[in-house]
């Protein structure tokens, strides 16, 4: 991609050949605008905006779905409690997006398409955008039915579908494996969860920091930028990790602090 791009732009591009906005850009804008308006017109002629029964606060539909662009967040509710899925993680997504220009100090790949020159930035963003955002929306729109259960698009929505609730918390899972009575010692499990999350947030970043000590990229980033990047990255990866934990081991919470919060 980058090579093709470079070839198309002449060597004299330091002093690039300029063109007149009128007619060159205005023409492109006009055509694009006309086509988009035409598309919108056809869409509006062929498909009516939905209008269901009048609002009825006593009749909750099942499922109640948020607007499609929030279904990624609604999907996160399966794996995290509302304070995480609905408040903390969305805030971190917004803040994290805003921080991107300040933590990505790679000067290459500005102003043209390239994967090779910015592999890490590209992979992380594309994973977050295409999988954790677009794909989860897709899942929410087409594959979630009553009770937020999983249905194939061609499957009939059966509101009485019974799904076994076999989820257990990680502390109980571990306690069971070790043969400890978790219910009588909640603080053991809680301590275990805290240590686990603390380790997740410190060991992974520290490991790569030490491993990358010789890498100029990490040197150049500096400690603060590195830590912010690592924090955001590790937080983002918590979602797929919890998804996998849920699907494979039926783990619900990793950390339970009774009466305060669960993660």
């Amino acid at each position, binding site marked *: 991609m980058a090579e093709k791009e470079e070839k198309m732009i002449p060597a004299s591009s330091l002093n*690039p050949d300029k063109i007149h906005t*009128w007619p060159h850009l205005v023409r492109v804008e006009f055509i694009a605008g006309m086509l988009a308006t035409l598309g919108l017109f056809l869409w509006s002629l062929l*498909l009516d905006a939905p209008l269901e029964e009048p609002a009825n606060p006593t009749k909750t539909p099942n499922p109640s779905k948020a607007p499609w662009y929030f279904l990624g967040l609604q999907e996160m509710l399966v794996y995290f409690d509302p304070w995480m899925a*609905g408040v903390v993680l969305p805030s971190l997504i917004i803040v994290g997006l805003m921080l991107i220009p300040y933590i990505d100090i790679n000067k290459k790949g500005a102003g043209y398409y390239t994967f090779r020159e910015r592999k890490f930035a590209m992979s992380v963003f594309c994973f977050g955008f295409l999988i954790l955002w677009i794909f989860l929306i897709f899942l929410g729109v087409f594959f979630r039915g009553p009770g937020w259960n999983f249905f194939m698009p061609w499957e009939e929505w059966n509101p009485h579908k019974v799904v076994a609730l076999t989820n257990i918390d990680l502390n109980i899972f571990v306690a069971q494996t070790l043969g400890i009575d978790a219910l009588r010692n909640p603080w053991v499990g809680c301590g275990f969860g805290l240590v686990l999350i603390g380790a997740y947030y410190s060991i992974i970043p520290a490991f790569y920091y030490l491993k990358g000590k010789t890498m100029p990229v990490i040197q150049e980033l500096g400690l603060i930028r590195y830590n912010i990047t690592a924090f955001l990255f590790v937080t983002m990866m918590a979602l797929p990790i919890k998804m996998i934990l849920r699907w494979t081991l039926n783990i619900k919470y990793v950390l339970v602090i009774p009466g305060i919060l669960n993660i």
Partner: protein
Amino acid sequence: MNIVELKAKIQEIQKTVVDSYVWKSIFRHGYKDIPRNRVLMTASNVFLHLHPSKMRRHGIKVSYTWCAGGLTFLFFLILTVTGVILMFYYRPVAEYAYVDMKYLQFDVPFGMMMRNMHRWAAHGMVILVMLHMFRVFLTGSYKPPREFNWVIGVLLLVITFLLSFTGYLLPWDQLAIWAVTVGTNMARATPLMGHEGPLAEQVRQLTGLITPRYDARSLLTAGTVVGAPTLMRFYVLHCIFIPIVASILMIVHFWRVRKDGGISGPL
């Protein structure tokens, strides 16, 4: 009159019009395709002078920008026009809102079309703004000197979601109130400030605040449930407050595109 005479006649009329006092008071330059006129075409037109009069060649490539930013703006304009038309027929009162939608659909000429265009353009704008962000990332266009414009962009992304979300409630049908109920319910779990959030109990004991009636969620819904007060609140946010904020942010965004050196490109 033969064809040659006709042509001459037309040219004569054209000359009279273009040379007239009134015409010259409106158009300050000729239309002949010379570099000076091409520049003036952008520079002396209040709308087109959003653009520079000359730009780098690759900046107009659709394969580079996908036109996504510009089309997002176009959809915002379409939404403004169709939205104002809908406002003529719509009352944000629980008793009337739904009936007004029905009236609009069945009795207002082109009412259904206006509603459809408003609805689908709103979805379109959300799709386009996400595509625009994706393209800006792929081309690394947030890199210096455009860091801050990316930040403005993220705010615009959030504002676009909020615009769409507040509008979702206004038809006052089942889809509307339940989607908004699901959305706003999350706010009750806000740490410290939502009545079911972590540590809210402790805050309540300390301050007496943070009850179901007064917490982060009721700030949005103007009550403990999505009801008539929510409708009014969302209406004002949707039709006045958020569009104004969006417009201000877009002004800054476009200004910065220019000030940061126009559309990005390889050095």
